[in-house]
Every structure is written in structure tokens, then in C-alpha cells.
């Protein structure tokens, strides 16, 4: 075997041509990377912005009004949600406060960081960060930025119904999450 270095071929050693071919190759690789970058970003973030998630029914029946005990009682609501490919059921707790003729329903999700609010003596307390509210939902003490989140309710065919909603935590305003 004999190897002679290719010195006659000007093209090969011309620096301009060398860098031209290199840059052109780099452009091809760059185009693929850019295309896959855009496509995969859309693919990954899709569920975050998809509005195809099926909305649950608005009003959830609790029970006949006359069966609601006076004072504070706990009730569990079952939500049906479609997330991605799955339809699943989750439970959420609400606090019902009935006094004389008035009824208030509060979400048990703490407006501070989203822990579950419990009843302690005459007050509502969140044991995560010791926020405290009165029975009417107004803030007493602790890091919570606002009162307990009151939920809309109505009486339909003598049944107490609640419009269950989740709200943004950590804000002094009550902002519904869609």
C-alpha cells in the first residue's frame, strides 16, 4: 500500500471550503435540533394548557336541608375529573355551619398553603402553620392571607347543594381556579 498525501487537491486544503462544509453540516444538525426542540416543548406542555379537561357538574347535592345538624358538620364531596387519558374520582371536604336559619359552607382547603382545615373547639384551625378562623370564616390569627373560602350554595327540591370550587392559595384575593 502506498499513501501519498493529497496536496494536488486544492479544494481539500482551502480553509474557506473547509469551514463552509463544516458550517453547512452544522446548520443541518441545528435545524433538526430546533425542530425537535419546538415540537417536544409543545408535546411536553400540552396538558398544562389543554382546555379539553371535562368540567365536572357545578352543583353537588349534600343532603335534605332538614337533615343538616345545627352547628358545624363535615361533609365529603366526590368530584369526577378527566385528567389526560383517565377519568377518576377524588374526594374533597367542606365544612357546613348551620345557625338558626343561615347556612354557610366553607372549603376545607387552607387559603395559605392548601393544607386541610379542621375544627377545634369553636374555631377552625389549620395545623400545618397554625392559622385560625372564627366559625363564620373570618381570620383570627396565623399566616393565612385571607378568610376561609366560602362556597356558593342553594336549596333545590329541599336538598342543600354546593357549588364546589378550588381557589388559588397564598393570595389575599379569593381567585377561583378553573
Amino acid at each position: 500500500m502506498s499513501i501519498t498525501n493529497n496536496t494536488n487537491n486544492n479544494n481539500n486544503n482551502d480553509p474557506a471550503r473547509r469551514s463552509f462544509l463544516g458550517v453547512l453540516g452544522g446548520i443541518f444538525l441545528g435545524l433538526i435540533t430546533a425542530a425537535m426542540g419546538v415540537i417536544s416543548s409543545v408535546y411536553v406542555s400540552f396538558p398544562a394548557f389543554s382546555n379539553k379537561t371535562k368540567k365536572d357538574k357545578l352543583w353537588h347535592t349534600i343532603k335534605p336541608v332538614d337533615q343538616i345538624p345545627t352547628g358545624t358538620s363535615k361533609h365529603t364531596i366526590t368530584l369526577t375529573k378527566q385528567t389526560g387519558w383517565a377519568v377518576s374520582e377524588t374526594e374533597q371536604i367542606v365544612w357546613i355551619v348551620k345557625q338558626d336559619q343561615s347556612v354557610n359552607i366553607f372549603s376545607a382547603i387552607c387559603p395559605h398553603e392548601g393544607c386541610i382545615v379542621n375544627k377545634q373547639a369553636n374555631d377552625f384551625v389549620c395545623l400545618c402553620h397554625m392559622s385560625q378562623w372564627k366559625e363564620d370564616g373570618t381570620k383570627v390569627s396565623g399566616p393565612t392571607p385571607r378568610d376561609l373560602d366560602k362556597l356558593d350554595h342553594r336549596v333545590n327540591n329541599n336538598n342543600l347543594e354546593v357549588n364546589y370550587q378550588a381557589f388559588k392559595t397564598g393570595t389575599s384575593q379569593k381567585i377561583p381556579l378553573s
Partner: protein
Amino acid sequence: MALIQSEKLSQIAEWLDERAAIKAIWQLLVKFSIPGGARWVYVLGSGLLFTLALQFFTGILLLLYYVPSADYAHVSVSYIQKEVLFGNFIRGIHHYGSSVIVVLTVLHFLRTFFWGAYKNKRELAWIAGVILLLLILGFAFTGYLLPWDQKAYFGTGVGVSLIGAIPVLGETISQITLGGNELSTLTLSRFFVIHVTVLPVTLLIISFLHILLIRKAKPAGTFKETITVEEDYYPKQFFKDCFFTFFLFLLLATLSYVIPAPLEPQANPADANYIPRPEWYFLFLFQLLKYFQGTSVLIPAIIIPGLVSTVIFLLPFIDKKAERNPFKRPIASSIALVFFLGIISLASLAVLEDRSNPVIKAQLERQTEEGKQYLKTPFKPKNTGGAVAKPEVAPVPAVYQAKCASCHGDKAQGQFGPKLYNLSQKEKRSREDIIKLLENPQSYGLKPTMPTFADLSEKERQDLADWITSLKE
């Protein structure tokens, strides 16, 4: 302005180089010479590297939504395909990518063989290459099951049953592969783990070794005896490799866009009519199986592939002559050519025989059509039950056993009559509707094959309606 910019760039490059030796790494990557110079025929290896990288990337993206369970695998793939933006594109690239990899691997293999590029201290690089070929077939086999559609289920069933042909240990190995006696959710988990962890890690290590060994031995280059040119990899071969890579990407993108990756309805083990056919690259093996009967299935399933693999593995030790020119190695070249043409003929025969048998042809066409129809139907999410504990399914009422079970099956799963699950989700099938329907089915638009049950008591009809509306899946 441009001058300042390029000065800035070179300053950044300098800064990086002092700390991370980027120039030395770049030199190491592209500074090696190719005897005979750059050629289009050498792009296959780089093409494989790119397509494999693309499979890793799209595979990771698919994992974002895929669920490896017999209950949810199919619905999650269907979700990727029908709902997720660019989901059909990503899955398409992964699907067609597997075929492109098999084609490139075979071409790369043939190129290396005919160029005699396994000779002259390249035995280990060759062996690493053969291991990579087997790994790629392993990827193809395990990935085929994951969508859990009809062809995945039935195709893999045939594949695994071949393992049973291994003497003495066959039965045990096949049971370990399946995780039991039949294809189940455990089988899916096993194939999934092999496909996404065991094989990728092994492939990474062996690919690295393969490239390292080739760089150590230096590229073989041309098989001509007098080499007049010796060119560096960069820029000519680099450009050719990048161009080919770009071509492969366009090919895969176009295929995924124009013909979406197939997805048939979810696996139904009770479908007696389904005829499984392997992917095109396993058709030759499928055809070979037809020529052997009974226990002699051992020959095409185990002995022939085993012998051929062994010969290919040991090729550099069998053929030790220095001659690389394929025209001066007529015996080796002819054997390889006959072997390759044999594989193509077997695969073609498999297709031709399917087409000439009217029954099989019709069924295969029906299956393809069902798959196309399935892709066209809108996505339907699956009820997972979720966090809430469901009450146990109520026991079957006696009146159902007496009056309904003979047509609708003893668990309402459907037999002669339709199955009765999820009825309450349909229109005009509430509890009250069902009570009335039993009295006069035809007023609800049912065919006369559904008899009237007006003779049942009101209580019996209420019990039936209660039970039927509780049936959900």
C-alpha cells in the same frame, strides 16, 4: 460590528478552552483520517447513531404519557396518538424509526462485510457490532407489545411461544418471560422494563465500545490496494454524515405526518378471528416456520438463527485472509449474497402467500381497516375509579339468572345479546327507563329479538334495573 462579535466569540471559546479543553475534545472527535477519502457509503454508521439518539429522545417523550399496565397501556397510547399535540408525530418517529434502524443496520452490516472492514485487527469492533444488531432486534421485539393492541397481543404471543420450542428448559424460560402461563399485565411490565432500561443501557455501553474500537483500529476506508488519498473526517465526511442525517430526519418526519403510526383496537384475547403477522423485518422467520412441522419447529426457531448468529459472530476468526476486495473473495461474497437474497425471498413469499389466500387476505384487510377506523374515532378516556373506594358489585339477582343470563351472559358480559355495562351513561337508559324498557322493549327502539318482560312483577323489574345500572367498568 461583525468583527467585534467574532472577536467576542473567539474570546468565549478561548475562555472555555482554557477550562474545558473544548478544542482538544473537538480534535479528538473529528480529527482522524479515512483511507481513500470521504464516501457517501460511509454515512450508514452515523445515520444509525443519529436514528438511535432520536429513538432515545422520542422514547423518553412517550414515557411522559405511557402507562405500562394491561389496563391502561392502550388508552394511554391512544391518548398520545389522538389528543396530545404532536403526539402522533412523536409516536410516528419512534414507530418508523425502528424500521429505519433495522434497514440501516442491515445495510451497515452488508457494507462492512463486502468491504472486508472487519479484517485487520477489527474483530472486537465486529463482535460489538453483532451484539448491537441483536440488541436492536430485542428492542423491536419488546417494543412491539407495549401499545397492547390486537397485533401487539397476538404477534407477541406467537413470538413467545417459539421460546417454548427450546428443548428441556423451553417451558421454564417461556414462563419466566411471560411472568406466568399467559400473556398478562406482568408480561407487559417485563417487556417494558427490558425495552426502556436493560436494552438502552446495554446499547449505550456497547455502542460506545463499538465506536472506541473502530477509532483504535482506525477506519478501514476503501478496499482498494493502492490508496492515493487520505482525508480527514472533518469536513468532507462530516458534511456527508450531517446531510444524510438531515435526509433521515425529513424522511421520518414526512412518514409520521403522512401515514400516522398504526394503532389497532385494544387487545381482545377472545377474538378468534385475528391473524397476527410480525413486522416486516421478522417476516422471513415467520415464513421459515411454515416449512417445519411439530417438534421440528426447533430448527427454524432456534437452530438456524443460533447457527447463523454464531457464524456471524466468529466471522473475523473464520475468514482470516487479508484480502478485502469483495470481487477477490468470490466464495465469501457469494455466500453472503445468497443468504441475503434468501431472506428477502422468504419475506416476499410470506407476503405473496398471504395475498393469494382469499380468506387470509380478506381478514388481514379487515384488520387493517379496523385499525384505520379505530384511529379515526375520537379519543375516549378510561374510568379508573380513582381514590374513592367503590361499593362491591351487587350479587346477581335470581330473576336475572332465570330470564336474562341466557342471552346477555351470566355476568351481563354479553353473549347473544349485548353486554349491559355502563348502560346508565347512555341516553334513555336510566333506572326508570330500564324498568319501562323491560315492559316494552320495542318502544325503546330495540329489535324484536329482545323479548318483553311485562310478566315480571314491578319489584322484579326494579331489582333488575337497580342491578343493571350498578354495572360499570
